[in-house]
């Protein structure tokens, strides 16, 4: 069984997010000449358990509450921190991804990591809590951006005012291109989804558009164009081609009737059900064809089952369908 590991959003983020985006930059620090007594006050006031020791811009060590306790026990509290600090430093680069920090936390079992740049200058400090907070913030920002774009798409018909607003989506469909079959209707389906149409309507439009697209691919000599005109109340899907045309439209409409050649049927197309499916999904359909000239199929789906006659109490058009 081939199981490809899948990543969650958080797993993706810890690989993408650089440490500088989640680290804390306002680091409490001491100089090598700060005394252990002064250090005690700094740790107490800031309620922290350790600080980096910085000489000018350069990180030279780290001193913790543990070092302070040892100094107290040994009566060495007047000593400068440079005498008692740890110089074995566990650092991460600010440009590295968060996953590197996660690895170091696991490897060294430390509570904080010092973040430096490639010149060894101290840039910030990082705890496990900072990572959690950074990830949550990033996820919520992404989510928010997604929500906003959805909101904007949804309100296109309210935001853009005209006497009659419609959005026209055109898709070119190539003859006998079975590899791309369904692409146009998939894109249309996605657009309707973005615009916030109700799932049942999306489904009806998608099925109709798919069958119309397939007809263009299977039957039209030079392919054709699939157009969807979206209005606040109605969606009109049109499939137009320039031949060969249907000799007998009534016959074409009867279930099971198909003129598709065998090789196309072997792919699963040409069941003679396409137009029936469209008729079933559409509120109305119109098929016009002239042999040698071309075929025009128009499919209409109303976005509201009451055909848009009712208005809500404040007289505004109810935008629930789109």
């Amino acid at each position, binding site marked *: *069984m*081939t*199981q*490809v590991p*899948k990543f969650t959003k958080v797993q993706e983020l810890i690989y993408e997010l650089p440490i500088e985006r989640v680290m804390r930059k306002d680091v409490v620090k001491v100089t090598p000449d700060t005394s252990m007594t002064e250090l005690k006050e700094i740790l107490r006031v800031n309620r922290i358990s350790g600080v980096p020791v910085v000489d000018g811009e350069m990180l030279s060590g780290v001193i913790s509450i543990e070092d302070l306790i040892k100094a107290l026990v040994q009566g060495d509290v007047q000593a400068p921190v440079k005498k008692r600090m740890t110089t074995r430093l566990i650092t991460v680069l600010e440009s590295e991804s968060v996953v590197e920090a996660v690895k170091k936390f696991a490897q060294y079992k430390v509570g904080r990591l010092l973040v430096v740049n490639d010149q060894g200058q101290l840039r910030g400090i990082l705890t496990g809590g900072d990572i959690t907070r950074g990830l949550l913030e990033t996820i919520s920002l992404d989510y928010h951006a997604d929500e906003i774009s959805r909101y904007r798409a949804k309100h296109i018909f309210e935001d853009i005012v005209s006497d009659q607003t419609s959005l026209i989506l055109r898709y070119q469909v190539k003859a006998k291109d*079975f*590899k791309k*079959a*369904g*692409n146009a*209707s*998939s894109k249309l*389906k996605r657009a309707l989804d973005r615009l916030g149409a109700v*799932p049942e309507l999306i*489904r009806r439009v*998608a*099925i109709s558009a*798919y*069958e119309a697209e*397939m007809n263009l691919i299977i039957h039209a000599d030079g392919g054709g164009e699939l157009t969807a005109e979206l209005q606040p109340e109605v969606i009109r899907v049109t499939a137009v081609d320039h031949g060969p045309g249907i000799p007998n439209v009534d016959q074409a409409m009867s279930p099971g009737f198909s003129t598709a050649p065998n090789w196309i049927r072997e*792919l*699963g*197309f040409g*069941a*003679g*059900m*396409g137009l*029936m*499916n469209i008729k*079933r999904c559409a509120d109305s359909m119109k098929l016009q064809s002239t042999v040698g000239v071309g075929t025009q199929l128009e499919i209409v789906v109303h976005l509201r089952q009451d055909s848009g006659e009712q208005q809500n109490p404040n007289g505004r058009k109810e935008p629930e369908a789109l």
Partner: protein
Amino acid sequence: MTSLKEIVEKLNLETVSSAELTDRPVAGGYAADLLSCVMKGAKKDYLWVTLQAHVNVVAVASLLNLAGVIITEGNRPDQESIARADEEKITLLVTPKTTYTVVGELTLLGVRGES
């Protein structure tokens, strides 16, 4: 309701797409090889059993929001179909068994078709 994951395990199906196998409930089943029939008969969250393995199977599954597709008799989708399935987050499963056998096993697991 039986989950997709459970079905994959019990029927010993091979996953060829990389969409995560979830506890997504399977609402029912449908079997046919003619795409327009599937368009008509398969419902949202249904599992579709077919011996078709080409890229349009993915298009149909995506348009109908199917829970997944079981491709039977050892037919395997090509790389293009798998790539498309990954893009559309469609689960493609393959098995050497026949459609008839798979449908029988699904029924025993409680996955029913439209009555």
